[in-house]
């Protein structure tokens, strides 16, 4: 290999290696951190320590870990299921049926994707107050169920759904909702998987809205608990690391189990 090309190769691998290492380091730091005491963590100790059991035990007792984990899981799974159901039905409906006014309605829907949550949060909080839903998990789920983005995602994906499958089913005598249920959903499984990943991630990691709505400790999600653990004047970082790991594991597992759908889901927006 000629020298300039060799240097070029070294540069490329050096840069990419550094990028990869920097990207992964906080994960390593988090895992190592679960075994270290807070004192070691704030002194930048990089080796494995002996405080893992101690940290874990404190996290489970102080933060009532099983309950908050259950809260997060419940909100995320239920919220994701409802979002996929309602929004995929709508995305399908927008693409398949040519109803009058469809296009301007859809354009308006796309605009809502651009609306910052800050605009919505005060009225939403008041609506939830009137409905008596403050400090409930339903209040977290409801506003996300009809998502402009997920509807958009499903409509884009539906463009690839062969219209002949629908025509054949109509000739076969299926009603429109049966076509959706028995033909569309099974055919679009990978689209659902990708959408599941992105919606689950978003609900599992949601912070601002739960922060506003959930007020008592036994209702809180894991994200909220980690935030409040870390914002103490002297945070117990060992406990925080255990919490961070517990909060990251589900998304990490989803990522490695469904890496293809994960990336597809992210890219879905521009296809």
């Amino acid at each position: 290999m000629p020298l300039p090309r060799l240097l070029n190769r070294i540069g490329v691998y050096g840069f990419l290696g550094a990028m990869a290492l920097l990207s992964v380091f906080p994960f390593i730091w988090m895992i190592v951190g679960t075994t270290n005491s807070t004192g070691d963590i704030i002194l930048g100790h990089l080796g494995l320590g002996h405080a893992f059991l101690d940290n874990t035990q404190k996290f489970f007792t102080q933060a009532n870990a099983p309950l908050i984990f259950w809260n997060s899981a419940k909100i995320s799974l239920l919220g994701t299921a409802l979002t996929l159901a309602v929004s995929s039905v709508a995305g399908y409906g927008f693409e398949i049926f040519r109803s009058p006014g469809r296009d301007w309605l859809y354009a308006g829907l796309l605009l809502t994707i651009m609306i910052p949550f800050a605009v919505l949060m005060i009225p939403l909080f008041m609506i939830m107050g009137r409905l008596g839903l403050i400090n409930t998990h339903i209040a977290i789920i409801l506003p996300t169920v009809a998502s402009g983005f997920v509807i958009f995602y499903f409509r884009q994906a539906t463009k690839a759904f062969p219209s002949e499958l629908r025509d054949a089913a109509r000739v076969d005598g299926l009603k429109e909702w049966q076509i959706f249920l028995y033909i569309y959903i099974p055919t679009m499984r990978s689209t659902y998987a990708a959408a599941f990943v992105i919606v689950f991630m978003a609900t599992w990691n949601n912070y601002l809205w739960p922060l506003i709505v959930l007020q008592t400790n036994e209702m809180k999600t894991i994200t909220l608990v980690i935030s409040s653990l870390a914002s103490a004047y002297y945070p117990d970082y060992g406990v925080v690391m255990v919490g961070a790991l517990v909060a990251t594991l589900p998304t990490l597992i989803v990522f490695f189990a469904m890496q293809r759908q994960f990336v597809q889901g992210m890219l879905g927006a521009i296809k």
Partner: protein
Amino acid sequence: MPAPISLRRYYDVNGWFFVVPALGLIAVFMIYPIIWSLWMSFQTGRGLVMHFGGLANIVRLTEDPVFQLALTNTILFFVIQVPIMLTLALFTAVLLDDPKLKFAGLIRTAIFLPCVMSLVVYSVIFKSMFVDDGVVNRALAAVGAISGPIPWMSDPFWARVLLIVAITWRWTGYNMIFYLAALQNIDRSIYEVARIDGVPATARFFRLTVPMLKPVILFTTVTSTIGTLQLFDEARNIVASDTSAGTAGPGDSVLTLSVYIYNLTFRFMPSFGYAATVSYVIVILVALLSFVQFTVARERD
């Protein structure tokens, strides 16, 4: 046998059944709040005692130093952070797109991994890494880059740098994936012809790659801008903030518009009308910047 109604009508009625549940929810939890918020932005008063104030809230914006700080911070973050991150993402993507590169899949997965972490979680991890005697300062000192610890948590300048570093860590891989996908859709023979024609590598990048990636670059710019304008989780969790007092970072150095709205609503004696006004500032910024970016992209055609 079904009633012999017109087929077209039959399909249309069904179409509405599919769309109506979502539209109903969006009307209640999206459209109604948007309008209510707009209406509130013309109301003044504290708590639930509100009365019509006309443009009073807009006047208050011009006289409110905290708002102006939050606005400056927010704009600062996206003006500096978005270009750095997107350049880095594009550069990495182009390097990774080389079919002869070894370990490309592994490196790509590694760089994408930060996307898996929730915003709050990565914020608190960064917080633990950037304390005065923490791992980052120690590493910088070990390679001789600094003589004393950098005061990430207590100096306004460094607190802002920390925030930018953190956001860049979290989102570079995300944007890189978009570029990689777009690069893979480019016909390789375009590059092969250019190489045979003797077009140098830098010209191939700026004359071929960048123009062909323009739609994706526009998309990532718009989404990153919208995201940065709404910055909340990181600003509230990375830099040690006195959440009871409602400040964000030393001297409110990482106070963003979203944090300020939250504080106005839920921290201080609630000032709903004014908070709504500030939230519409974000709307206007989002609309304005998206418009500018689309226009710029079109003019370059």
